[in-house]
């Protein structure tokens, strides 16, 4: 390993200077990253790879790459919300591995899909385990992703110079949602079928091109084998697209550096710590805590992540009383129903996700402008606003769950307004107010 922790708590190999003792960071302060130590190590190892063969060079580059990543400097005051990224990585790997194995048995055909999933659950060795991992993983991935977005909004992780990081992340969020939807159609239970039906009709509500798009999406008049083929291909290809974008997300993070809860104060290089061993152990702990929760839900309370109605095979002749998406789509489902027009409902619920893309340009404030001033001093104001946003999401979800009937229609509309008010009202208003005050 690159950094070895000895019994007396000293870490070998250089980068330690930034951390040990009473916070001595002077030697690290001027260096762009821990290149110095990397170079030293490389010089030290040169005799081993002096033959100059291509594989030797590749190995050396790989080692340098790993070393560079391990020595990546992060603010020391990152709290537990910053371990969610590692949790998401772990769940993504789990989803990929279990998904690839599940695909070995699954058959994307309207007459065979349901029984192939039943075969998986009943007869394929450990098929029940693979499917539970995949189903629980979907819920945990979405939950962790929403927390990740929440952390970004709470601490303003989208502000300059990290707009690119935030944009890639939002695109990832959208792709993950599409993938989750496509995956939910695959078992071809009642909810899968009628979920695809509702989504198809929603797409069909787009003026002019709607009917064509619906035909392309469903591959026919109603969901069927063609739809399953589309969803299977979409689910499969998007999974790897997501992996690629996650790598891009991490690469940008390494270029731009991480935010910190303390804002500008945490960005002081002298007060930063290398990724390994400080954050590997922290992230590892986070992942293990998540794994404990995961195990509890998967093994003891599986009802939390399964939809009973989806264990009925798809029946085009029988519309279920409650067509309800998975919990992670409920807020957007609520917004879709809160608007009387189908097309505008689609715009509003789709826009609720898409608006995250422009958040860095809605909130033009910087960490520096927030540090001083009367409005910047009102640190509770952004928190109350974000609290309203979270409540709006929960309310819209509850409204979606109750099919936006009766009093839920009013609540659903209120929640929709509350949601948009945060992005279109609060963010621009507050940052402008703070910016004006900082200038005067």
């Amino acid at each position, binding site marked *: 390993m690159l950094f070895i*922790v000895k019994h007396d708590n000293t870490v070998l190999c250089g980068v330690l200077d930034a951390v040990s003792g009473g916070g001595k960071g002077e030697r690290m302060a001027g260096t762009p990253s821990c290149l110095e130590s990397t170079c030293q190590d490389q010089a030290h190892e040169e005799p081993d790879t002096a033959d100059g063969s291509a594989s030797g060079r590749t190995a050396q580059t790989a080692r340098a790459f790993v070393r560079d990543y391990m020595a990546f400097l992060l603010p020391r005051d990152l709290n537990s919300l910053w371990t969610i990224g590692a949790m998401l990585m772990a769940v993504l790997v789990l989803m990929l591995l279990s998904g690839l194995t599940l695909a070995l048995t699954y058959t994307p055909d309207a007459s065979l899909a349901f029984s192939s999933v039943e075969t998986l659950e009943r007869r394929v060795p450990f098929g029940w385990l693979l499917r539970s991992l995949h189903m629980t993983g979907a819920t945990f991935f979405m939950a962790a992703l929403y927390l990740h977005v929440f952390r970004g909004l709470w601490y303003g992780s989208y502000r300059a110079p990290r707009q690119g990081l935030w944009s890639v992340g939002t695109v990832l969020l959208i792709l993950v949602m599409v993938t989750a939807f496509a995956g939910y159609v695959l078992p071809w239970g009642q909810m899968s079928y009628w979920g695809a039906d509702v989504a198809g009709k929603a797409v069909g509500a787009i003026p002019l091109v709607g009917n064509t798009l619906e035909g392309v999406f469903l591959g026919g008049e109603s969901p069927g084998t063609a739809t399953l083929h589309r969803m299977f291909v979409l689910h499969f290809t998007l999974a790897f697209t997501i992996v690629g974008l996650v790598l891009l997300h991490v690469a940008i993070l390494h270029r731009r550096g991480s935010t910190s809860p303390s804002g500008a104060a945490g960005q002081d290089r002298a007060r930063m710590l290398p990724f390994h061993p400080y954050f590997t152990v922290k992230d590892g702990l986070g992942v293990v805590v998540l794994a404990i929760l995961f*195990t509890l839900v998967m093994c003891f309370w599986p009802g939390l992540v399964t939809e009973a109605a989806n264990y009925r095979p798809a029946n085009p002749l029988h519309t279920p009383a409650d067509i309800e998406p998975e919990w992670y789509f409920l807020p957007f489902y609520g917004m879709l129903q809160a608007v009387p027009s189908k097309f505008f409902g689609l715009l509003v619920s789709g826009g609720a996700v898409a608006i995250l893309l422009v958040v860095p340009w809605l909130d033009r404030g910087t960490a520096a402008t927030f540090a001083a001033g009367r409005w910047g001093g009102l640190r509770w104001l952004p928190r109350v606003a974000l609290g309203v946003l979270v409540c709006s999401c*929960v309310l819209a979800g509850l409204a979606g769950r109750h099919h936006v009937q009766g009093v839920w229609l009013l609540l659903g509309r209120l929640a929709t307004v509350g949601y948009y008010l945060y992005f279109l009202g609060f963010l621009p208003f507050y940052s402008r107010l703070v910016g004006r005050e900082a200038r005067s």
Partner: protein
Amino acid sequence: MATRMSPIARPFTRIRSLAALMLPVLAGAGVFASVAQAAPPPGTPAHAPAQNWSFKGPLGHFDLAAVQRGYAVFAGVCASCHSLTQVQFSDLGAMGLTSDQVAALAASWQVAAGRDAEGHLRHRKATPDDMLPRPYADADAARAANRGAVPPDLSRITQVYPGGADRVYALLTGYKPAQTLPLATGPDAAVRRVPARPETGFVNPYAIGHITAMPPPLRDNAVPYADGTQPTAQQEARDVTTFLAWVSIPHADDKRRLGVGVGLYLCFLACLLVILKRRIWSHVTK
């Protein structure tokens, strides 16, 4: 710019403030939810009393003896109308049978084996690799044989049937004579008499509309029990419900067992990681 609060304590205070923000809203939602919930319309199935099942709760496990007795009830009574389309005979080995016993069990069933030269249906003894045969070729045949009702498939019945195992048991044991059935409760509840004629169905407060097309299926000594348990109608209902719950989620016990092991291991690992984290971070000044 050193903060006094430790980074571990800080997120908690924030989460607390967030929870304080959300509480009134959630409470308001709860009030609205209770307002929105109207009185149940007449004909709503009665609430099934909770039973003390062996498989109940996160740490329950299936009583395999009851599952096996339940299989006997299913094979002797239910299977004449209901299918288990997703189940193979080999799957039944997991209720505690050896492969020989599974083969013998399968051989007691007849499955279709194509047609002979004259076009008549041929049958053969089932093997462990066969699916359980369906009692009716299709939904139309089922409808014709059951006065317009299609007996539901039982592969996942305790999962998909609202009310689960409790309601399946209540339905099996809850048949009422026609005269005693109040259709609604409340001050203006009119006790409507429902005729218990075979054309309309049978009175059962746990069925939708309090009428079910299924005749009372169980009676005392309907099937012989090999293990000496007294086959009363109650006992048969308990056992067949246990069997149906098991066949709905046959690997639930494996999962719970795995969960205990993995959970304990992960807790141990988490303890080690907490120690390691504290040690590595011990000399980092805030």
